[in-house]
């Protein structure tokens, strides 16, 4: 079920009312209800994979129980083996569904390169939606239990609810057990302010997804599918639009997910913090897909030694997490190169020890950014947009060709795209998010701007009107494929 579908518009209010008025008998019943509706939500897409999700969840839960049992018996080694088996199982399933064909094809290509043709058949494998997200969530649990950062879930229902919680099931934010799981143990109380703001966050997410991302997609797809025949200025514009498409798509999804969770009394972690207002790449990665970046930091970067060792080790660890991050996004070399590209951009900041120079909010005390800040923001945006060309292209060679075509005299011609209306919307997005850059989302605390309810409601109706009228068509969210 998609957040931007009629089905979800019907599903959400029904689930909301049942959750607060029928199944609020006790936490266990409420959690069980969450599991049921989450499985319905997931099964709406493809019911064949419900069993897979259920089995991996059950295995992760059992591993938690056993890890704790062996810990109590001071058998840390066996506890480690159990944790490791759970990791191998989860990654194995992920690998089979997501990376099998990639490895086979790369293996065959490598043999061909050395003059030894090889024939291995690939399989027609359907990637279960959201598998990378819930697998990582299950992994974090198992690791945290092993590290004794969290008590294992005694209640299987709470654990199933934690893994399958529908707002964030298919595209995150990737929650840590330490944050989300305890929320399933506590009684939830309806909070008026949280719920109202949750609805606003959903509305803002829909705006970003339906108006920005879906409309950008039309232009981006037409240009990227035919990039050899486009002028450099058109290619440049399409690359910029893809930056907004992927931001609108994914941060829009995250806003809807977080807003929906707030309606049910849950606090999910923040996933985006206005990344395009970043002044360097390091800041960008503190603001983009925060739940994944911090996941890699906590479970890969830190265990590898983080930045505590020599500069060589720090650089090596940085490369590792960017490559893994690229690989996580998909079984294609384009994602690996994208990760590598960002790692390369990161290194100068690491060497100069400037990777944490921008931890505050840009132009914190002023209305507009200074010239230097503006230049930094624009430069970072250009770098990020170049990276997105790798991300979006069908192959690495196509990405390089796309970039090379940008350096052409036709860069100074007028692009052959009609983007006036969309540009107005993108400007609107930038302006609103700039004003709100200290806040959680674009419509956060709108009361401070519009004192009267009628004024606020007019704004909501205006946004809904724009979404209905100017919404692009889309069947899915980009991050579903990851």
């Amino acid at each position: 079920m998609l957040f931007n579908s009629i089905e979800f518009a019907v599903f959400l209010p029904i689930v909301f009312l049942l959750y607060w008025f029928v199944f609020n008998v006790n936490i266990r019943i409420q959690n069980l209800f969450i599991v049921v509706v989450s499985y319905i939500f997931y099964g709406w897409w493809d019911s064949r994979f419900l069993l897979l999700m259920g089995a991996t969840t059950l295995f992760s839960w059992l591993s938690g129980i056993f890890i704790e049992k062996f810990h109590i018996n001071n058998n840390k080694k066996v506890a480690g083996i159990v944790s490791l088996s759970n990791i191998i199982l989860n990654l194995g399933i992920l690998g089979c569904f997501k990376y099998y064909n990639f490895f086979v094809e790369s293996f065959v290509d490598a043999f061909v390169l050395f003059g030894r043709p090889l024939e291995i058949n690939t399989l027609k494998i359907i990637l279960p939606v959201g598998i990378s997200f819930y697998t990582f969530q299950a992994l974090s649990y198992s690791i945290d239990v092993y590290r004794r950062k969290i008590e294992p879930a005694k209640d299987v229902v709470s654990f199933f609810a934690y893994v399958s919680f529908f707002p964030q099931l298919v595209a995150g934010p990737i929650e840590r057990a330490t944050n989300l799981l305890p929320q399933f143990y506590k009684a939830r109380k309806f909070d008026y302010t949280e719920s109202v703001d949750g609805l606003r966050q959903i509305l803002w997410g829909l705006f970003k997804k339906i108006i920005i991302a879906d409309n950008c997609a039309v232009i981006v797809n037409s240009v990227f599918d035919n990039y050899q025949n486009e002028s450099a200025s058109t290619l440049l514009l399409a690359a910029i639009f893809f930056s907004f498409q992927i931001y609108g798509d994914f941060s829009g999804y995250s806003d809807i997910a977080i807003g929906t969770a707030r309606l049910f009394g849950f606090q999910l972690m923040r996933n985006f913090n206005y990344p395009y207002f970043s002044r360097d790449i390091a800041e960008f990665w503190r603001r983009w897909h925060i739940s994944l970046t911090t996941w890699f930091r906590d479970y890969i970067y830190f265990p590898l030694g983080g930045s505590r060792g020599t500069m060589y080790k720090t650089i090596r660890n940085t490369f590792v997490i960017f490559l893994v991050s690229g690989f996580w996004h998909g079984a294609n070399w384009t994602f690996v190169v994208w990760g590598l590209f960002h790692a390369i951009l990161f290194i100068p900041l690491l060497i100069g020890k400037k990777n944490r120079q921008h931890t505050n909010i840009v132009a914190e005390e002023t209305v507009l950014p200074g010239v230097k800040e503006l230049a930094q923001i624009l430069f970072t945006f250009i770098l990020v947009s170049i990276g997105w060309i790798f991300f979006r292209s069908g192959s690495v060679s196509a990405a390089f060709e796309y970039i090379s075509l940008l350096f052409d005299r036709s860069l100074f011609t007028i692009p052959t795209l009609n983007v006036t209306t969309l540009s107005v919307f993108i400007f609107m997005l930038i302006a609103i998010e700039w004003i709100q850059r200290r806040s959680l989302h674009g419509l956060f605390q709108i009361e401070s701007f519009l004192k009267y309810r009628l004024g606020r409601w007019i704004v909501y109706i205006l946004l809904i009107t724009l979404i209905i009228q100017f919404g692009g068509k889309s069947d899915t969210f980009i991050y579903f494929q990851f």
Partner: protein
Amino acid sequence: MRQFLIETVLFAILLTVFVAVLLWFVPNNKIKNNSLFSSIDKHHRLDSLASPKIVFVGGSNLAFGLNSQLIEDSLKLPVVNMGLHAGFGLKYMLSEVGSSINKGDIVIVTPEYQQFLDNIYLGEKVLIALLFDVDKHNLSFLSFSHFVKLFPQMTKYGVSKLFYKKLDVMDDGGGNEFVRNFNRNAFNKYGDIVLHWNYPNELINPIAQSDKEVKVNLKSVEILAKFKTDMESRGARVFIMPPSLQNSSYKNLASTVSKIEDSLHSHNLYFSIKTSEFAYPDSLFFNTVYHLNKEGLDMRSGKIIEFLKDKF
């Protein structure tokens, strides 16, 4: 919670009222006097004719594909051609004539093949324009399932009235001379479009063969079966005829047509004339694969006359 629910419901009501006001009260000036308004004239004729009469029910394959005067003169029975647009959907087409059918009437239902696929039988955006901007009385012909299917489009159509440029209901077909002159006056008193009789054929691309497996929506077949039973119980006679279709498209759609026929047979419904008999050479089509030119529509009308003569 109480406050939250009250506010949410109030907001939903406000939003609904806002869209309803747009739908109901704001006129769509883009369709002023366009061909949809001929529906009023068709209804007027349908209600004014005494029984027995011949009523043609379908989409634009009928509007562009009949010489009703020829039929009326040959059979000595008054004829009304209700065909206008396939986008109204089969369910609405049947519903809008249902109450006007009496004993002795002959109803000829000629649905485009698409009416049996997906849920086109419940109508499309053009139906909303007809209902809210042409004749609001026709709203009474809608069922609950219409509202369920059309609700998102109704909302969009209502909102689009705020943005004049976004208002489009009929395909403008490239804005050629025929399209510019195509309006309510393009029809004769029987309900046939006559404007195109003097225009040359346009280039028409045939419907391509589909790779996807075609599935017939049995709901539309059931609706047709029920209509037939209801009308026959009133003493009317109902014949189902295939639409006229460009030969090359007919060949590409062969398996789809066959599946539709199978589904009709499963409900004891049969085309009164073979589908192949209404597949005409491409040169007899005017601007779409369903729209005949004058020569083609005369041939088709002749075939219908021939068929009906046997029934008296």
